[in-house]
């Protein structure tokens, strides 16, 4: 068998293959016109489809970026709030510097942007500031006021007693003396 003739009809023709070609050639395709219905049109290719696909991809990427940014800004605040939820040192602790959670509270207040501050539920305890130590002059004035009030109170009591008259015990005692 001539392999080259079988492959591309080159070289010396193979009689057996030629014989088969002659016989089977009768079954060969006979050209016929293609009958395409006139009402069928090929689908037009949308020229703008690639541009639309690119635009849609960019839009999706933009939306994903916005969502990611929002999550990023909310996530640290939530972490710090979670830290705040840890049990704090009892309030009986005398010095405010010894209370640890005070420091993260300050960090939370700094990290939350002003526009988000009202959106974040904070766990901040509003503490009353300890009263400032009174000065010496104030203490002196207070003592003077208190002593004046005490004297006035004593004098009022004495006047009240004189107005009510002597008590029975006083009369009895006077009677004994006299």
């Amino acid at each position, binding site marked *: *068998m001539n*392999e080259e003739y*079988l*492959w*591309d*009809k*080159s070289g010396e023709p193979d009689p*057996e*293959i030629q014989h*088969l*070609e002659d*016989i*089977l*050639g*009768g*079954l*060969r*395709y006979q*050209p*016929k*016109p*293609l*009958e*395409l*219905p006139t009402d*069928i*049109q*090929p*689908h*037009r*290719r949308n020229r703008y489809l690639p541009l639309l696909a690119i635009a849609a991809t960019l839009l999706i990427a933009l939306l994903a970026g916005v969502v990611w940014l929002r999550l990023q800004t909310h996530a640290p605040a939530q972490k710090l709030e979670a830290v705040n939820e840890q049990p704090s040192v009892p309030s009986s602790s005398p010095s405010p510097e010894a209370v640890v959670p005070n420091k993260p509270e300050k960090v939370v207040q700094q990290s939350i942007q002003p526009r988000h501050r009202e959106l974040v539920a904070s766990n901040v305890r509003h503490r009353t500031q300890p009263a400032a130590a009174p000065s010496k002059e104030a203490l002196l004035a207070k003592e003077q006021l208190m002593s004046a009030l005490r004297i006035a109170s004593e004098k009022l009591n004495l006047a009240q007693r004189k107005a009510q008259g002597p008590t029975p015990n006083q009369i009895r005692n006077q009677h004994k003396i006299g």
Partner: protein
Amino acid sequence: MFELDATADMLLMSQPAKASTETPATETRIEVVLVKAVLEGDRNSFGRLYDLYAPMIHGILLARVPRSEVDDLVQDIFLHAFKKLHTLRDWAAFGPWIAMIARNRAMDFHRRSKETVEVTDDLRSTDTSTTKANEILELIRDLPEAYRETLVLRLVEGMTGPEIAERTGLTPASVRVNLHRGMKQLREKLGYTEAL
């Protein structure tokens, strides 16, 4: 035996596909141009694609379905391809694409029809040469699928190996091996039948 076959295959595959290099690149460009024109509304360009590929589709179908059904199926396949041409991504791959449509359509035909139709249909001819051709065609159809399609395209449609590779999308080495093995098996079958 298997070692000899394997050695032969290696030799066939290692040979440079001389004719495949001669495959004109212009034809691919013609396909691309024609598909583009059809998609832009030119129906005549699809007629040119039909002229180029109808023999291949005819051969693919002839290797699988009764001869009497082939012509109608060829028209049907090209009509389907015309409707679905916008789904073809690689315009240069029009040949492999429509070849696959033809193979699938042949499988659908066998699912729907009965094998008895094939026998009565093909043996209807009284012409001696046609009868002989139908007998050989039946022998080819008994071969493995890869061999029968390649052999029909070569022996019936008169296409060369490089043309078969170019149109169907198969590699030249595969076509060469299929031709070699298919021809070998067909000879064995022909010798067996002639002895009877």
